């Protein structure tokens, strides 16, 4: 049942997550938090949206509940449901309800993956009412000022099916995340993997080349996350080209011609 979509291993972050700010995003997020406005994070996959939310939760000392959305996610998966246990029905809170109750951050990752009817349950929480009606129990929960709803969404998927409804969009402030500038991205890779700056820069250059191929055979270019994976492999002694191939090119595409072109680019760069 739906509970597989919920990550509840830890709500309160103890260690500071590494995050390198790229612009005013921290200031904007804090301001939204203080004004009780929900936040929409836009940007390609693997560019640091989730990390940013973790960092902000740590910084503002709030518990964080993350839900990775998928197309089977129902409203009950978010709000909660009755389960049958030992001859009785008992109510179990969903992650959204939990977050409202504890006054934490609820982060719905890749919200467009969720079905449209599911998305609607967040509406009363995301406007000035800030309430969560729990229909099955006939309850209405009022969110505390500390509660914050954050969504992430990748506008890169140009499918009409995977677009966010205006009624949802127009409840949030939206912060756009792009791939970090070259030097910053290299710094992030160095920090996360412990690789030298020269290799980090080269990885970023390769990533830039793959980003050139977006919509020209690739759906998206290489993300910072992939670069970190490659860097970690390189650091543990695997050949650079091999690392880039298994950690960057192969995950990006299955198409032979594209893989061939990527490997040629790789050879030209290193």
């Amino acid at each position: 049942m739906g509970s597989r979509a919920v990550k509840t291993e830890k709500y309160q972050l103890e260690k500071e997550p590494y995050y390198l700010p790229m612009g005013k995003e921290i200031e904007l997020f804090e301001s939204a938090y203080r004004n009780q406005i929900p936040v929409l994070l836009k940007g390609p996959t693997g560019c640091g949206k989730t990390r940013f939310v973790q960092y902000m939760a740590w910084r503002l000392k709030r518990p964080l509940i993350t839900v990775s959305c998928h197309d089977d996610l129902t409203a009950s998966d978010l709000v909660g449901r009755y389960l049958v246990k030992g001859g009785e029905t008992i109510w179990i809170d969903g992650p959204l309800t939990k977050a409202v109750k504890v006054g934490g951050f609820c982060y719905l990752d890749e919200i467009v993956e969720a079905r449209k009817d599911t998305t609607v349950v967040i509406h009363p929480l995301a406007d000035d009412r800030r309430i969560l009606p729990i229909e099955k129990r006939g309850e209405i929960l009022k969110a505390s000022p500390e509660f914050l709803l954050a969504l992430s969404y990748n506008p890169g998927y140009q499918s009409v099916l995977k677009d966010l409804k205006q009624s949802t969009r127009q409840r949030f402030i939206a912060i756009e995340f792009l791939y970090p500038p070259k030097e910053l991205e290299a710094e992030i890779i160095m920090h996360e993997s412990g690789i030298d700056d020269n290799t980090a820069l080269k990885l970023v250059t390769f990533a830039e080349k793959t980003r050139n191929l977006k919509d020209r055979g690739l759906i998206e270019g290489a993300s910072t996350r992939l670069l970190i994976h490659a860097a970690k492999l390189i650091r543990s002694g695997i050949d650079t080209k091999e690392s880039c191939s298994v950690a960057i090119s192969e995950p990006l595409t299955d198409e032979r011609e594209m893989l061939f072109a990527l490997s040629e680019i790789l050879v030209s760069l290193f």
Partner: protein
Amino acid sequence: MTSQLYQESLRTELVKNLSYYFEDEEIKETLVKIDFFDPKLRQKILALCIFLSKMSGYLINRILKYAEEASYHLSLNEMERWLGRAFDLIDSDGLEPALTFLSKVDDSSLNSFCYPEGLALEKISSRLVTYIRGISGVDLEIIQDKDCFTDTSTIYLPPVINRFREPEKNFTIYKLMATYKWAQIACGTFSLDSSKPKPCNTSDIETLFNNFQERALSLDLYNILEAFRVESFLQKHLPGLMRQAGSVKTEIFNERPSVDGFSEKTAFVESLYQYYLKRETNGSSPESLIRALKVLHAYREKERPSSQDICSLYTIAEYLKGDYVPVNPILFLGTIKPEKVSQRLKIKKEALKKNFHGLIKKIVSTPEFEVKLKRNNRDISRQRLINREKLYLFIKGMFIELDEEMGDFFKGKGGIPGILLQGSDIGGNNYCVEMDDLIEELDEESRETQSNGIKYDEWDYKRGGYRKRWCSLFEVDVYPSSEPFVEHTLKKYDGYVNILKKKFELLRRDPKILKRQKEGENVDIDATVEAFADIRAGLPSRENLFTKLERNERNIAVLFLIDMSGSTKGWVTQAEKEACVLMCEALEALKDRYAIYGFSGITSNRCDFYRIKGFQESYSEEVKKRIAGITPKEYTRMGPPIRHATKILKSIDARIKLLITLSDGKPEDYNAHYKGCYGIEDTRKALIEAKQQGIHSFCITIDKEASSYVPYMYGEVSYLLIDDVRKLPNKITEIYRKLTT
């Protein structure tokens, strides 16, 4: 039709054409000569002969002799390539160059077709395009040519590289060629500075090189100069590739000729090429070479090319003795062709003008046009003040700054929308918008469309191959009509529309909750309560205690392609338009994604593709006006629109993709040759291509003779003949319902 039947019909056609020139005996002789060739080649040979027979019958025997000669040197596959090249030349350059090509049947000319291990460009061009796009971030086209050069938007590469035995090494050569050409563009090789005085005071690279007395010499020298500069650029950006280049260079160096016996000038250029490859000179270099190397070394670190340096290098060479006989350029460096660059520039400028003009029209015709300036998201209009010297176009309360060329263009053109004003005539405190910012508004697609159209291949069944980039397709909007056609149609079909909507709504499968399921997301409270009661009562408990959400989404995208040829005039157009209205109403109820396009055109140079409703557009007033605006145009060349529709559908993410064509007859065009077999075969091929992309095609036709050709194009079950055109609007909705359930 089988290939044997083709050959029979081609043979009959040829005999008919030849009878104007020859006696029966002679014709027989010719046919015997054709039969000499392998049956696999015969069709191509016949097609070539028919083409030639339209010019002169006497050419045929000559060409057959050449072909026979060539067949002694080439294998079957090689012969096919050789003939294919001849057809390509006919298509691109005309008869003369093709004849010259065919007449060269000596070993060295045919050599480039004997390449068991050689690498053909067509095999790898898609990879190469992706590679170049990746490293450069710009879209450069790659096209086959006998030389390697670029005109700044296309890279021309030779059809085959057979320098090495291993295909990987040949690919490296292609890669180097393409990369060097891109690097030349990126490094500004084709935009020389113009600040220096005579004789190099011109910016147009073509005019600059025309000023040199020995143009070939100056160009080769410039090629070398730039090679050094470009290489240090590549060294920095693509060190891996440059390592690969290193090993290739050594091999190429070993093949360069000795300079003994060359004139001083020729030897000078050859020595520079060799120096480029090996980076060393043999001990006793002439003084001219030493001076030249100094220039080269200073030049290689420069950011921009400079006309001064090419002048000084040329001056060194100019005083050397003897005539300059151009040496073979280094394989992967290719050549520089200023005339091609100028040509491209002119085309670009023309397109820009047209674009801008189109944009102005757009601004005028869209009531709520907002100037959205995308660059850096900043509102440039607030930052730029009016300059007294410049010329402005005043439209909708906005001053658009024109550059000199555009200014002249508008001054010379009557009837422009808006007012032309001199900067000094406008109050000083006004702000303006730059032309470039406005032009960014136009997306790439329309830019391409505006200039040369989108190119599509066309299938020529006679020669059993594609005519490459043969058709130019232009995507345009149907000119909207203010006639209340949609309202009239809705009135006319009043009751029917409502029934239709109901019918289609029924097809809609909204998600619904199924109760009492064995598995599901939620507990079915009613069932659970009952189960408790049952258990308490000592009955066996039931298992179906869950609710489950059932979603059967219709993931369908359909594109309607409407014949807008001249022959549809009258009732047919009327019926097509009504069909459009009813389909729109029905599909709006069903919520399937749909698009409607019309097509017509005249010759392969102008295939028009009319947008009535795109996939992303809603069924708006504008769309309704466009439906009302559907009018018969010219001819029915069906291949290009089907290929373009395929391209559009390919970009849509849907489980089922449908292409429904409404037609009133066979494919045909202005020139008779598309009529009949050719058009049918091309259309069939285009539909096969669509099928390969996972698109289902269906044809609705009103041509009573359709059964003789439509099943061949679309397949037996994929078409429907409507005997009375008036039934079309009712029928089409029925068909769609059946097709998608």
